[in-house]
């Protein structure tokens, strides 16, 4: 669904990442993007630690962090913490079985 003519992406963050994005400016955060990059590279650019992301949404569909983001896409970063049945129903579990944050218990320090 990416529109080739666009050279920007719309980015959102949920849960505590929402507050972090708000510090950057209005929501959604509009970011210039000339060439496709992976979600992981995008996270790096935005200074979001990988273990704070369970899945990313790209144009309303769930993907693992290594999926490619194209100019024109609508992207959202979701930290671990979405209630259980929904992460199943929304496909977080199936799309993202190799991610540490997916359905794994992270010990509190």
């Amino acid at each position, binding site marked *: 669904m990416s529109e080739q003519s666009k050279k920007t992406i719309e980015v*959102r963050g*949920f*849960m*505590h990442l*929402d*507050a972090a994005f708000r510090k950057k400016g209005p*929501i959604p955060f509009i970011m210039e993007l000339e060439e496709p990059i992976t979600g992981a590279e995008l996270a790096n650019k935005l200074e979001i630690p990988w273990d704070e992301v369970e899945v990313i*949404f790209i*144009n*309303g*569909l*769930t993907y693992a962090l290594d999926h490619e983001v194209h100019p024109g896409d609508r992207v*959202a970063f*979701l*930290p*671990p*913490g*979405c*209630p*259980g*049945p*929904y992460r*199943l*129903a*929304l*496909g977080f*579990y*199936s*799309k993202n*079985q190799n991610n540490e*944050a997916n*359905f*794994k*218990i*992270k*010990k*509190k320090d």
Partner: protein
Amino acid sequence: MNKFIRVDMTTMKVTTDEVPDKYVGLGGRALTSNFVADEVKPTCHPLGKNNKIIFAPGLLSGTTAANSGRISVGAKSPLTGGIKESNSGGSFSQKMAKLGIKALVIEGMPEGDKFYIVKIDINGVTIEEAPTEILGGCGNYKAIEVLSAKYGEKVGIALAGPAGEYRLPAANISFKDPEGNIRSAGRGGLGAVMGSKKIKALVIDETGAGAVPIADPEKFKEAAKVFSKALLDHPVSGQGLAAYGTDVLINILNEAGGLPAKNFTTGRIDWNDNISGETMNATIQERGGDGKISHGCHQGCVMRCSQWYADKNGKYITSGFEYETIWGLGANACIKDLDAIAYIDREMDDIGIDSIETAVAVATAMEGGLLPWGDGEAVLAAVKEIAVPTPLGRLLGSGTGAVGNACGLFRVPVVKNQAIPAYDPRNIKGIGLTYATTPMGADHTSGYCIANNILSIGGFIDPLKKEGQVDISRFLQIGTASIDSTGMCLFVWFGIADNPPAIQALVDMINAQYGLSLTIQDAVVDLGKAVLKAERGFNKAAGFTNEHDRLPEFFEYEPCAPHNLVWDFTPEEIDEVFNF
């Protein structure tokens, strides 16, 4: 828990018996549903003398087990015409368990118009006339104050609000929480059943009762520790829910395109920021005063998904401000202001009406031209009319199906006449199967999480595709039925579903309390299946067939943006869910 109490409102007699053998190992939903299936005439009128309403704590209620204080209420539903189990927090369940009461049943129906209070304490059960000041439209907040002043600040209370007194099909039963605020056994109109039996309130005082007996206290303590640590360590149950409440789902469902809006005509909105959990959290923090980001609906809740939402001056408006209510008013009825939604939520609690059913009914009324889209003030005024009740108030209190009929609409989002909540079945297919097939009528809590096999099936799930969805819906429904029987808040599954030692700890607690040696298969899978079978058996005898397990037809021909999908499961595929 060895007492089985029956209150006969025809003769005004109370009998206390030993628990019948067949119910000894059951609690919560397993007990209420088996009882209704055994004793209620399936074809009876839900508001007539042959319906019975049963209150039962869960198996672990009253113990120190984290999150075990939920109460189940069962009866034939005036909304769906089928069996109903609805559960709630508050302090009632733990007090019943401490008094050794396995179940309290209300049957029969008195002559005349008087309303009564059923008072339960260490000396037994008495029936008294209800004080007139809490009748005829008195709100629940005031009624709780009056009853607490009369019977003691610490008593537990289960109330039929004005909606219950008027026997409206969407009336809930309101439970006093530890701070004197309100939690609800919301769905299916059980408040109307209470009202039909002329019970205004049950009041319970456990003064003088000892602790709940535990067969093996050491083993129990150990298992309880493992269990609560699992909850606290998990990112969902330990952190996500406490910070953002269930309203965390607004942004997530909106992004996924599964947030039904404007009476189910689209799956995404652009005002999600106004009503999201993130915004609620920031607003509560900013306003200070009475506001609290997290709060437990009963003593012993360690996950604390509830909150106190305060107004601009920091004054308490409402608590337990849930995703489904905020979705219903905010996205589905297009009210773009969280404060306006909070005042309506408070009013619904005060009147004792199911906030999901009523929010969906409001959006349906908007589509039918009875109310202006998105007008919070008009909705608040209309909801207040339920307490009068005016004809519009009665109509809203009769639920979404009734409003849809009265307005001549085809887009009426109900299954078995109960409103579909908060997740669009066209873009999140698995949840649609649960709405269609649960014996409860469209209910999102019927399909919560279970155990290990889920995780393997979960590996294929794509929300937009059919693969694996039938299996998931079946396993989720079985797991939910068993959790609802323990007295545990369903949300514990967020914290233990992916943690086998924690599931074992839950079963170990039951074993240690009752001196049993159940396995996970017995306590979770087999029990859950048996509960669902009893419920489905009741519905069948009440006249329900497979054809009632269908979503409204418009889902099949109205595509839902942004993914533009329709509901495309065949009847045969849907019927597979209950093939076990």
